[in-house]
């Protein structure tokens, strides 16, 4: 028998943000990824969103670079219009069958010019736009779709339905239309499978009384995203579909298809509160006359910066919140107005709106082609400490296929799933030579010999711009020795010809006048490299997207095209070759913090073969979990903790320092050097990455007489009593719990996320031991999000009484005649509720450690205003810091439940693995360079650099001369230093000031 061979391949199912993130992480470590997506393009739901909460980032803007790098990654094979059929085999060696549906367009030939789209005579509703716009039978999923090639919808295409037309094939100059393509089934061998197939939006037809499709002005929230989108059906004008009028009063109906047992969807969808508030805010930004109203049950703003977002929505954007469940929606026939009937504290009401948005929830998607154990909600069953592992070994879950979650949790789960897949696979053998080392033409001192290639892009450019005239003109420009026109500059045959021209005419600079460098520069640069030219001896003139497509006047478009070519030639003339900067990587990690998150991160990384040093300041490992006895699901946390500690202590790759403190951290991504103080001595640790998992703590309350009466406890103290002295609970008649103690107000103006569930958990525990005990939970909003909702229901069914209070009317606690007394204005009945509990339990929230800032300073990573660590990007880089090579996991980023903490830890490990998998770090080629002769060491650059990548240092020990020095590992080439240097001593490679000046001079020079 041969040696067991580890696979270097992973299958990722689903091309939404989760699948894309998992694919990129794996591909970056050298694994080969098959990314299977059933739609004609990747992007998933996120591509349909207008903005994202709570930062209001444009969704497409932040997503599209990821999609592009995924499509371009040499280790990712994109399989669109494809679906998994079956999986067989075992972890490490699966055989998977995939069906690839026919696109009817040859991806290798299609240039994405879009000529075919306009000539197609068939118009059908555009599903991507929620049916609010139309598309053709041959169509692109959305404008920036990746891949950009269109697809023929055979259900509607006349060629397929009636065997006539054929327009698209006729107008396609690239010959890419292929009606004969067939569906095919292929078999692949992979080591692991990641399911990132996402969730399904609840069908709005589930509740017909809300009138979706029947009433023109009732839309789903996803449809409203398209209405808001600048590239949507109304170009970003908020109009209502019924009559195209501007709506003034808009209502959002929350919990549509969520928390609703009657349609078998009892759980909370976790994301709708925030997206509805976001939509309301953005709608008002579009049109300040809009009056948004949100009908809600509880506002579940349980994430980082969410409560502040809600507050801004209320105060600044005047979003009105009405706590009520909507019963039905009726239409006013004469004007399309909508009557929303609902019940609130005051009884039955009706109100008139112009447009109603249904906040449809998320439901589980069926797992096709694989056997994964699911529970009654349809979501898969997972274990507490393995949140991304399905019941089927080797199949991992990334994102909302596992549980309803928003984008950051999806991204975390994706990186975590990627990490798990790494442990079952190995990186592929290195390609023979990734670089063109040695063979590059030396252009130093050589006179510029520029070749100009002007693209017709079929008729996309040539139909407007007079291309032959531009070519003639290019020949007259200084330095140009060759110019020609191409039908498609990007087609494979033209690229081969381009390389030949470089050799035939000894070209040492190339200009391509065609489309956008954002999409095509890498392709041409690679071609240059293949021709032996440094890829930076290249410039593009964008004469399509920013010229022929937008300027119909042939004369003026041609004039502009000439100018753009002239500018590109002037820019490239002085362009110098750029070499990537390579820095070595130490294949080891430092994990700071030995709680659940730190341990999970250490174990995860060590399992990929990385040496890990774990630093904990307490004498024992375990952190906050040492105070948790049972999860709400009933799992024994102390047992799990003991298992984890045993595992970590016996792991050969993990070194543990307890009672240890970090003194100094020097270096940067790939090569850090950290001084750890332990047992009175200092030890130096060398590592390539850092994972910060320093945790958080339960807040000690200083209100409601806490500490002054032995009958007043925190939830943690109660939990300990439940676990250790349950008999104590038997003698209780009444227990009152107060939620949001010191949370969501004052200096702790955020939701601690876990307290509602803790209260429900402890209430259920008391009820189990002493069913006759009356329990009152005084709350502001119950935030048992996701599938935790079932325990909220259980508590109500068990007789736990939930009483809402307003922030302005907090409960009053006093001791009167030796008895605890809690008074509260009950907002529904407007009556004073007076309770005399035996015990009062305070849910006092979670706070960050005050000394987190010290570690923050050592690592040069920021904290946000509440004292939690601030990640690089709230949505797409939830476990990365802006500082490369430093990652964050667990509670120190924000309060979390155990599975969430483990997922974030595994995600941080996964992200760290992408750094450690590299032999060297390749820094940005566009970097700042300092001319020390000009530098006056004023330090302005140092102050301005967002990456701390430039620093004034002594550059000559003897004379003590000082000048700014750029750290190549950290510089991103943004140019802030260069633009502000008062001595003009800094330049950005590839964008040097002199070249820009020359470009400007050329533009205005008389021809």
């Amino acid at each position: 028998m041969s040696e067991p061979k580890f696979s270097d391949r992973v299958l990722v199912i689903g091309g939404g943000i989760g699948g894309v993130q998992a694919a990129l992480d794996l591909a970056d470590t050298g694994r080969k990824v098959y990314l299977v997506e059933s739609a004609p393009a990747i992007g998933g739901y996120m591509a349909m969103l207008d903005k994202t909460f709570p930062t209001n980032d444009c969704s497409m803007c932040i997503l599209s670079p990821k999609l592009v790098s995924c499509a371009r990654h040499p280790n990712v094979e994109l399989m669109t219009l494809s679906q998994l059929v079956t999986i067989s085999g075992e972890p490490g060696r699966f055989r998977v069958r995939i069906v690839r549906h026919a696109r009817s367009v040859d991806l290798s030939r299609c240039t994405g010019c879009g000529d075919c789209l306009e000539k197609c005579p068939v118009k059908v509703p555009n599903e991507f736009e929620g049916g609010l716009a139309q598309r053709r039978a041959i169509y692109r999923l959305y404008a920036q779709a990746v891949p950009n090639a269109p697809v023929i919808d055979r259900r509607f295409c006349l060629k397929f339905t009636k065997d006539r037309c054929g327009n698209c094939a006729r107008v396609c100059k690239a010959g890419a239309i292929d009606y004969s393509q067939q569906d095919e089934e292929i078999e692949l061998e992979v080591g692991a499978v990641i399911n990132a197939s996402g969730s399904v939006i609840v069908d709005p037809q589930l509740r017909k009384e809300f009138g979706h499709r029947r009433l023109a002005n009732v839309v789903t929230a996803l449809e409203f995203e398209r209405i808001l989108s600048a590239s949507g059906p109304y170009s970003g004008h908020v109009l209502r579909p019924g009559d195209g009028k501007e709506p003034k009063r808009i209502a959002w109906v929350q919990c549509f298809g969520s928390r609703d047992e009657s349609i078998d969807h009892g759980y909370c969808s976790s994301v709708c509160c925030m997206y509805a508030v976001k939509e309301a805010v953005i709608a008002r930004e579009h049109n300040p006359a809009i009056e948004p109203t949100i009908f809600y049950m509880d506002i579940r703003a349980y994430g980082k910066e969410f409560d502040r977002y809600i507050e801004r929505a209320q105060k600044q954007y005047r979003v009105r919140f009405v706590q009520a469940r909507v019963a039905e929606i009726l239409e006013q026939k004469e004007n399309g107005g909508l009557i929303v009937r609902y019940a609130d504290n005051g009884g039955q009401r009706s109100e008139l709106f112009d447009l109603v948005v249904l906040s449809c929830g998320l439901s589980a998607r069926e797992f096709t082609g694989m056997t994964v154990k699911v529970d009654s909600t349809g979501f898969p069953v997972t274990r507490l400490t393995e949140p991304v592992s399905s019941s089927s070994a080797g199949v991992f879950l990334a994102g909302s296929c596992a549980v309803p979650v928003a984008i950051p949790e999806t991204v975390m789960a994706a990186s975590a799933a990627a990490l798990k897949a790494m442990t079952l696979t190995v990186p592929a053998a290195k390609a023979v030579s990734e670089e063109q080392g040695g063979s590059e033409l030396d252009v130093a001192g050589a006179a510029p010999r520029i070749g100009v290639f002007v693209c017709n892009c079929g008729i996309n450019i040539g139909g407007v711009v007079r291309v032959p005239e531009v070519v003639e003109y290019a020949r007259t420009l200084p330095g140009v020795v060759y110019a020609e026109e191409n039908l498609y500059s990007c087609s494979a045959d033209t690229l081969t010809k381009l390389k030949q021209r470089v050799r035939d005419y000894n070209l040492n600079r190339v200009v391509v006048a065609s489309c956008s460098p954002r999409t095509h520069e890498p392709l041409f640069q690679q071609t240059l490299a293949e021709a032996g030219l440094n890829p930076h001896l290249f410039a593009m003139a964008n004469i399509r997207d920013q010229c022929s497509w937008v300027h119909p006047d042939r004369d003026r478009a041609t004039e502009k095209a000439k100018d753009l070519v002239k500018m590109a030639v002037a820019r490239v003339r002085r362009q110098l070759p750029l070499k990537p900067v390579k820095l070595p990587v130490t294949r080891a990690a430092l994990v700071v913090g030995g709680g659940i998150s730190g341990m999970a991160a250490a174990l995860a990384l060590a399992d990929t073969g990385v040496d890990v040093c774990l630093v904990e300041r307490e004498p024992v490992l375990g952190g906050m979990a040492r105070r948790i006895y049972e999860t709400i699901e009933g799992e024994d946390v102390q047992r799990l903790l003991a298992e984890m500690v045993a595992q970590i202590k016996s792991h050969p790759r993990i070194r543990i320092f307890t009672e240890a403190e970090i003194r100094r951290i020097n270096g940067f991504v790939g090569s850090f050097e950290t001084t750890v103080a332990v047992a009175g001595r200092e030890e130096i640790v060398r590592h390539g990455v850092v994972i910060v998992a320093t945790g958080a703590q339960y807040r000690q309350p200083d209100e409601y007489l806490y500490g002054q009466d032995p009958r007043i406890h925190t939830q943690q103290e109660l939990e300990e009593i439940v676990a250790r002295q349950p008999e104590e609970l038997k003698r209780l008649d009444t227990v009152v719990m107060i939620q949001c103690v010191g949370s969501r107000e004052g200096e702790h103006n955020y939701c601690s996320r876990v307290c509602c569930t803790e209260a429900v958990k402890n209430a259920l525990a008391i009820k189990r031991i002493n069913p006759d005990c009356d329990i009152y939970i005084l709350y502001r909003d119950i935030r048992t999000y996701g599938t935790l909702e079932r325990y909220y229901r259980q508590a109500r069914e068990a007789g736990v009484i939930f009483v809402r209070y307003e922030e302005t009317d907090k409960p009053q606690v006093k001791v009167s005649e030796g008895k605890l007394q809690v008074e509260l204005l009950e907002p529904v009945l407007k009556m004073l509720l007076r309770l005399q509990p035996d015990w009062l339990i305070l849910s006092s929230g979670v706070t960050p450690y005050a000394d987190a800032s010290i570690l923050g300073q050592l690592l040069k990573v920021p904290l946000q205003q509440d004292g939690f660590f601030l990640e690089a990007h709230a949505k797409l880089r939830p476990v990365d810091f802006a500082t490369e090579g430093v990652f964050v996991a667990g509670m120190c980023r924000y309060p979390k439940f155990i599975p969430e903490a483990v997922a974030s830890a595994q995600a941080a490990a996964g992200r760290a693995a992408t750094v450690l998998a590299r032999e060297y770090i390749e820094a940005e080629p566009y970097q700042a360079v300092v001319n020390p002769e000009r530098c006056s060491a004023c330090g302005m650059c140092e102050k301005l650099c967002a990456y701390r990548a430039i620093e004034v240092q002594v550059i000559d020990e003897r004379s003590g001369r000082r000048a700014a020095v750029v750290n190549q590992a950290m510089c991103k080439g943004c140019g802030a230093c260069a633009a502000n240097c008062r001595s003009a001593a800094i330049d950005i490679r590839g964008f040097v000031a002199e070249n820009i000046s020359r470009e400007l001079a050329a533009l205005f020079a008389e021809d």
Partner: protein
Amino acid sequence: MSFEPKIVGFLCNWCTYAGADLAGTSRLQYPPNMRPIRVMCSGAVDSVYILRALLEGADGVFIGGCHPGDCHYVSGNYKTRRRMVLFNSIMRALGLDEGRVLLRWISAAEGKKFADTVTEMTERLRQLGPSPFRKLWEV
């Protein structure tokens, strides 16, 4: 023939340049008066570039960056904004109409806003007439 202003546009790679591309993909028409120069960040637009463009003969200069909070380089656009306040106060002192130098935040999804901005700026410069700064190297 009526006066056609020439505008130099410094467009940030991540937002406004992408927005300009989207205007193209969406076939939104706008006057062909702007000559775009792609820069990695609006924060990299040295005031010298703006002056240089005006002195060489531009009738207006446009700078497009990411919306506040969206900068690909954390805070480059805030630096641009501060610099433009200073720059405009100098321009006022030199007697140049402020309308000739325009800073706008245009995201990768705002093709329409890009097209509208170029249209408006061109229209305004048509009314203002040729720049008095053209080739005025003695300034």
